[in-house]
């Protein structure tokens, strides 16, 4: 049911762990819904120099966290902010429709970590401009 790329990122997840003294942290999801992602960012000169994660969730949630942290490393904050859930899913060679929410969670986790950094720096938090245009496909939303 999962692509080879999803299985690769599930079985050999990149960037698992925590960053000591992270510049930005974003935790999204809810244990009641069955997935929680915690994203840690190290930021230097407006560039994401390191990204790590800890995830409680299914195969797609772990693979999405792994891929999202890979994709934002080395990116400027503006570029990292533009990372869409669709891009995460595409980089994984697709996710089953019912698992698209896992990629949404990854996008939200990155956004939350970036804003955590911005607020700590005394900057204005960026606004989710496309919160209604996620590619949910047949996504189901947990209402907890």
């Amino acid at each position: 049911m999962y692509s080879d790329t999803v299985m690769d990122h599930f079985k050999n997840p990149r960037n698992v762990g925590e960053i000591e003294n992270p510049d930005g942290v974003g935790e999204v999801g809810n244990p009641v819904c069955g997935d929680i992602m915690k994203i840690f960012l190290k930021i230097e000169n407006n560039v994401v120099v390191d990204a790590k994660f800890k995830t409680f969730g299914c195969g797609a949630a772990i693979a999405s966290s792994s891929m999202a942290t890979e994709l934002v490393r080395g990116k400027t904050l503006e570029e990292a902010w533009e990372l869409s859930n669709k891009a995460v899913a595409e980089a994984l060679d697709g996710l089953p429709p019912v698992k698209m929410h896992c990629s949404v969670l990854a996008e939200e986790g990155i956004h939350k970590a970036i804003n955590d950094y911005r607020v700590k720096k005394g900057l204005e938090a960026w606004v989710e401009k496309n919160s209604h245009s996620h590619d949910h496909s047949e996504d189901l939303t947990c209402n907890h």
Partner: protein
Amino acid sequence: MEAQRTIYMDHSATTFVKPEVVDVMIPYFTKHFGNPSSLYGIARDSKKAIDVARVQTAKALGADPYEIYFTSGGSESDNWAIKGVALANRKRGNHIITTRIEHHAVLHTCQFLEKEGFDVTYLPVDQYGLVDPSELEKAITEKTILISIMYANNEIGTIEPIADLGAIARKHKVYFHTDAVQAVGNIPIDVKMQNIDLLSLSAHKFYGPKGVGALYIKKGVRIENLIHGGGQERRRRAGTENIAGIVGLGKAIEMATADIPGHNAKIRSMRDRLIKGVLDTIPNTRLNGHKEKRLPGNFNVSFEFIEGESMLLWLDDAGICASTGSACTSGSLEPSHVLLATGLPVEISHGSLRLTLGDANTDKDVDRVLDVLPKVVKKLRDMSPLYYKSGKEGGSNV
């Protein structure tokens, strides 16, 4: 590298077909393929074979052969029992009692009937998944026409007090149906002693073929047909008989009920070693279901801080077939209704794992799972933000 042996621990999902069962089925595909409704010789062979299977099935349940009707499986039997009794007894009342932990074949049938004007009471269960007979008695009204309570639960393996529940139904003159799909071959059944009016079973749960099952209907029960058409099964279930399947069911049920205590002792000892090994070595783990009143091969366990599907993927990687009550494998976001009904917190329900042992297993399989599973749990906990929050404390098991 040596090819890895597949370890099948999902016998509650389905079983392999025993070679002896396959052997008796094959002639009915190639040689005795006649339609039992026809008059010539090969058709009479088919008819005779169905009669033999009916006797074998009746004997396994303590029923009379004319009370056995062959169907396409457990779901059809459940649908027929519930819809058939509801429609035939509508004038007497419109109330049905069932439980919150039934299989979807029962739950969704009841929900359908609610849309058609029936009232359904879904009885709660305790933390072990047991129905309280006094709760059943309290729920009965003058409009109650049917009680449907499963014999043993497919997820947590809890065995319900069927004889007690049946006695209450009998006392109040309400029809009593039990979905015994998980029970046949694991628990000795006697429909007369246990006051059962209708009983569903499915061959592929006791080493028979898929696509065939039966409904026991006690003589005199008022029930409408579900499948209309030809006059098969004494005009109660239309459709040309699945002869090979029915022959296979007969042989399988005969084998499965020949020595239930002896068979269970072997499966139970493997299962108990597995339970002990897991609970002793992995902290923050809890056994779901009842300690004693459970199916001999069933082990259902929750591991805190991790999610079931990711466990299944790792176990599959090691060649181990299991299942979970987590939402993430069901196509919905709600975890198992059974685990939730026992009061297990939602987040812990997501981390449940079901291993069901049976004749495909050996002691070596248990060793292998006890070697692999703790590593899988550790790997997933190490990347879980919940485990991190819990301070990696080794909590005690429940």
